[in-house]
C-alpha cells in the first residue's frame, strides 16, 4: 500500500477527434497581494523565473508559470514536489508585506486537450461561453470562465493544445464533458 499522492483521475485519457488527458499532479499556489508592488514582482520572479503577468495572461517558462487570476491574485504553477520550497521562497521574499500565499495543488485537477488547433478550439467552444476563434483566443492568454456547469480556467500552451484547470471534486465531470466534446463525428469544422 503506497501513501504517495494521487491526482483526481490518476492520468485518465480518452481519444476522440482530439485527445483528452488528466495531466496528474501540479504544484499550484494562490498568491494574493499588490500585484504592482516590487516585492510581489520579485517573489514571483524568484519562484518561477517569470514576470508578473499582465491582465488575463499567463507567463510560462522552464521553471514554472504564473497566471493572472484577478486584480489581486495570481496562480503560481511549479512542479508538485516543488510547492513547499516555492511557498517558502515567496513567504520569505514577502515577509512583512500584506499578502496571502497558499498551496492549492491538491484542490485542483488539470486537463490537456490536444490534437489539431481547430479540434481543441471546437471542443472548448462546446463548453465555454468564450470566443475560441483564432485571433480571439491565443497562446499566452488566460481565461477564467464557466465550463458547462462549473467554473474553470483555460489557456493554450501552444496552438495545438488547451489546458484546463478545475476543482478536484468535479474532475470526473470535467473529464466526461471533454470526452463528449471530442467524440468522433462532432467536428464542427469552423476553425479549420
Amino acid at each position, binding site marked *: 500500500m503506497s501513501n504517495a499522492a494521487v491526482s483526481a483521475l490518476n492520468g485518465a485519457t480518452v481519444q476522440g477527434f482530439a485527445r483528452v488527458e488528466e495531466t496528474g499532479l501540479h504544484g499550484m499556489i494562490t498568491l494574493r497581494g499588490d500585484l504592482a508592488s516590487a516585492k510581489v514582482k520579485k517573489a514571483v520572479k524568484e519562484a518561477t523565473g517569470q514576470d508578473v503577468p499582465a491582465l488575463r495572461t499567463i507567463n510560462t517558462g522552464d521553471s514554472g508559470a504564473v497566471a493572472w487570476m484577478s486584480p489581486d491574485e495570481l496562480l503560481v504553477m511549479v512542479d508538485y514536489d516543488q510547492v513547499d520550497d516555492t511557498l517558502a521562497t515567496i513567504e520569505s521574499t514577502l515577509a512583512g508585506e500584506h499578502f496571502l500565499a497558499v498551496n492549492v495543488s491538491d484542490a485542483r485537477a488539470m486537463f490537456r486537450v490536444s490534437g489539431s488547433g481547430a479540434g481543441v478550439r471546437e471542443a472548448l467552444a*462546446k463548453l465555454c461561453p468564450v470566443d475560441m476563434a483564432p485571433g480571439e483566443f491565443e497562446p499566452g492568454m488566460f481565461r477564467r470562465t464557466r465550463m458547462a456547469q462549473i467554473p474553470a480556467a483555460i489557456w493554450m500552451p501552444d496552438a495545438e493544445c488547451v489546458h484546463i484547470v478545475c476543482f478536484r471534486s468535479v474532475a470526473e465531470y470535467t473529464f466526461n464533458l471533454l470526452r463528449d466534446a471530442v467524440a468522433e463525428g462532432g467536428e464542427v469544422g469552423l476553425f479549420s
Partner: protein
Amino acid sequence: MSTRLATGGRLLNKSRTMGFSFNGKQLKGVEGDTLASALLANDQMLVGRSFKYHRPRGIVASGGEEPNALVGLGEDNKFEPNQRVTTTELFDGLTCTSQNHWPSLEFDVGVINSKLFARFLPAGFYYKMFIHPRPLWKHVYEPFIRQSAGLGKAPRDRDQDTYEHFYAFYDVVVIGGGVAGLQAAKAAGLAGAKVLLMEQDPHWGGRAPVDGGTIDGQDPQAFVDATLSELESMSNVTLRNRMMGAGVYDHGYVLGYERVNDHRPTAKGPRHRLWRIRAGQIITATGAIERPLSFAGNDIPGVMLASAVRDYVVNYGVSIGDRTVVVTNNDDAYLTAITLKEAGLEVPVILDARASGGGALADRAREMGIRVETGKGIASVKGNKRVEGVAICAQAGEGAVLEEIKCDAVAMSGGWSPVVHLWSHCGGKLVWDEAEAMFRPDPEKAPTGDTGEGFVIAAGAANGQFALGDALTDAQKAGEAAAKATGHKGKAGKAPAGEAPAYAAIEPVWMMPQGANIKLRMKAWLDFQNDVKVSDVQLAAREGFESVEHAKRYTTLGMATDQGKLSNINGLAILSDALGQAIPQTGTTTFRPPYTPISLSSIAGNAIGDTFQPIRKTPMHDWHEENGAHWEPVGAWRRPYTFQKPGESVEDAVTREIKQTRDSLGLLDASTLGKIIVKGPDAGKFLDMLYTNMMSTLKPGRCRYGLMCGENGFLQDDGVVARIDEDTFLCHTTTGGADSIHAHMEEWLQTEWWDWKVYTANVTEQYAQIGVVGPNSRKTLEKLTDDDISAEGLTFMGWKDITLDGIPARVYRISFSGELSYEISVPASRGRALWDRLVQAGEEYGVTPYGTEGLHVMRAEKGFIMIGDETDGTVIPQDLMMHWAISKKKEDYLGKRAQEREHMADPNRWKLVGLETTDGTVLPDGAYAVADGTNANGQRNVQGRVTSTYYSPTLDRGIAMGLVHNGPDRMGEVLDFPKVDGTIVKAKIVDQVFFDKDGEKQNV
C-alpha cells in the same frame, strides 16, 4: 391524384431511389425529396387528422409553416412525435406513422366530433365546461375528450442520440440563405465584418430559383451559385445550412438550431447542435409565408398554398393534381398556374377575388389559354378525404353557387406575410402596411442591445420587399448597415439588378365570399392544426374576448405547434372585422422563440447522463462506493449516509455505526466541510464582524466554535475556527456553506470594508479531512505517528501539525459526537492513502466508517445544533440558547443590529429544548406541538415544533430537539404532537443534551 412527373425536380437526384414506410406501407422516393414530396409522389394526400375534430388533413405547405402534416418519426429509441414532413429530408429506411387517429388514418371514429359535436365544441369549449355540473364533465365530456386528445405520442424509450451546444461569436449573423440573405452576407463580408450566414434548409437560394425572374440578366440559380462560391472563398464568412435561427434574445444573443445528422441517422456525431451565438448585428432575411384563404372546405386534402403547389412541381417534380383550380387575391398565385400549365397540367380556372384582376402575369396566363375569372371566389370545396371539385361564387356575395368545377387540387393564395418572428422576439415593433395588407418590421423600432442601439435589421421579403430587385437592394443596404454598426467600413460592393414581372396591387380577402353565411363560416378553417374556424373567432369577439391575446387563448387560434404561422393574420383580421376596428388597432399576439419547435434534447445539450450535473466527489469516494455506501446528496456532493453491509438494512447499518463508534472507533469522511483561509493584519477584526463571538482573542494553535449571521440577524452558518498564526485563521464552514460563506466574506471585503487588509482563499478542496472518532481514536493515531497527541500534548480544542505515517497532516482535536475525536486534514491527493492506513490501523479496534446519519444522530444525542435543522432562515442564535457564543463586548457584528429589533428581542420567541417522548417512540419530523384554542383563521394554536428527531441507538429511544414557546422555563412539561393520522404523541420538555452531559467522554 398527386404523382411524380416525368420531368422536373431541380433538387432531386432521381438516380438514387430511397425506400421508406408510412403507416407500415413500403413506399419509394428519391434522393433530394422531403418526406412531404415523397408522400405526395406516392399519392399519399391524407397524412393526418386534426386535433379536435379528427378531420382528414393533407399537406398544405412546403416549409416550416406546415400545420397538418406531422408524423411520428422513427421507432423505439429513435422515435420522435410531431415531425413536420415538409422539413424532414428523406433518407433510405425512414419509417413514420401518422397521428391523431383511431383506429386508423383512413377510418377514424373521432371524426364523429366534426359531424355530431361540432356545435358542442365551439370556441372556449373547455372553459365553458368547467362551469357545468361536475358529473356531466366527469362522466360524459372528459372520457370522450381523453380518448381522442393528444398530439402525437411521447417516446417510450430513452433517446439514443447525442446533442451539444456550441458558443460562437460574430459581428453579423444573417438568418436566411435566400437571395436576400446571400446578398446581405456578401455585403457585410466585403465590408470586413465577420459573418455567419445560416439557412434552415439544405439548399441555398430560397424561393427565387422557383419564382424566376433574372438577377443581373441571369437565372437566379446562377446568382445563388456564384454568390455561394464567393462567400465560401471569404475567410471572414461562415456558411451553415440545415441551421435555423430559432430565437433572438437580449444583447444580440441568437440561437442557431443545427440539424447535423437528421438526414443521415446512422452517421457518428451529435444529432442536433444548438449554437449559442453572440452577434453584434443580426440580419433577418427570413422571407415571407403565404397566407391561406378562408373559404368553406379549405382544409380538405388537396387544398394547398399556391406557392407550395409550385414548389412541389419545380423542386420535386411532383404534381398535386391533374386539374388544379387556383384561387387568389394577388398576382403571385398566377405564377403557380403558369408553372402548372408549363408542366403540362390542367388549370381549369383561376379565381381572382379582385374585381379588377391581376397585372402582367394575369395577361400571360390568359395568353396561355387559362380561364381567368375576376371578382370570383370559392363558395365551398367538394370532397371529403380529397378534393373533388369547387363551387364558384361571387366574392362580393354571400356564397350563392354560380358554377361547379371538377378538380383534384386547389392552389390558394391570400397574400404574403413577412416572417417577422425573429425581428419581434426581442421587442422589434411592427407597422401595418395597408397597401400590401401585411405587418412588416418598423425600422424605427428595432430591438435594442446593450448600447441602446438597434441590433436587428430585416432584409428582403422579411422586410416586406417582395419584388426581386427591391429585395436585393434592401439586402445590400442591410449588409452595409450591419457592417458599419460593427465598425467595418470596407467596400461592400453593390446590389445586382433583379428583374421580375411587376405585380398588380393585392386586395385583402379575409373571408371568401365576403358575406359568407354561417354554414360556410363554420367550414372555413383558420387554424388547421387546432381546428379553429372563422365562426369561432367571431364567437369569441361576440362573447367579449376583444383583446387579441384573450381571443387567442379562448379559441386556441395560433396555439398549436405551428404557432399560427398560417392563421394569425387571417384570424386577427376576422377579429378586427368582428370588432369593427382596423387591423393595427387589434395588433398581433406576441412572437416567442423558437421559430419552429426545436428538440428538447438540443436545449439540454450535454446535461444528460453522467454529465447531467456535476457530482462532487471526495478523494475517498471510490472507497465508499466499494464499501456499501448508501449515498446522500449534500449540495453537489455525494456523501455516504451509511455504509451497508450485505443483507443489512439502512437503519441497522446506522445503529451499528453509532454503537461501534461510541464503543470503540469510527471514521468519518469530513472532506466536504468548508475551509477558508483568512489572512492579514485586519483578519481578527474582520472575523469579529463575521462571527457573533470574539475570534480576535483566539490564540494560535487553538480552535473556537463560532456562529455566523446575516445582516438580518438570522443564523446562517457555523463551524470551528482555528488560528494558524498571528495573521492567519482557518475557518471551517458547513458543507453547504463553503462557497456561499467564501462569497459572503469577499462581498463584505470588496463592497464595504475594502480598506481592511484581509485576504481570503477557499481551500476546501485542498484537504481531505477525516474524523477519527471514539475511545480508541488516540491509540489508533498513535500507531501512525511519533508526535505527541496525548491528552496533554494536544488538548481539547487545540490543533497541531504532525506526520502520520509519512503524510504531513494537521490534526484538530475537536468533537461533534461527544467522543474523544480528532479531525485529520491532509492534502487531498493523499486522502485516500491516509484513509486506507486508518482502516488498517483501526482494524484491531473494529473500526467502522460512518456516514452522515450517524454523524447527525450522535450530534443530536449531544444536543448540538445543525444548520438547516435547527435553523431555517428565521432562527437567531438567541432562539437556540446560544448566548454563550454571542459576544457582549463587541460593539458590532453582522446581525447584531437586527437582533436588537423588537420582534427579535421578544421574550415570546420559541426557544430550543430537548424533547423526549413518553413512550420512547420517535417524534415525526417537523411535528407541531398544539396549544389550547384556535387562531383568527380557525386553526389550532401551536406552541412549538420539532427541528431534529432521531432514534438514538445509544439510549435506545426516540430523542428530539425543538423550538418551544418559553421552552427553557417549562422543563418536565408534556406537550401534545398530533400526527397526520390523527393520533397524538406526547413528549416531555427536557434538557437538549441527552448523552454524557458532563463531557466526560471527550475530555480524556
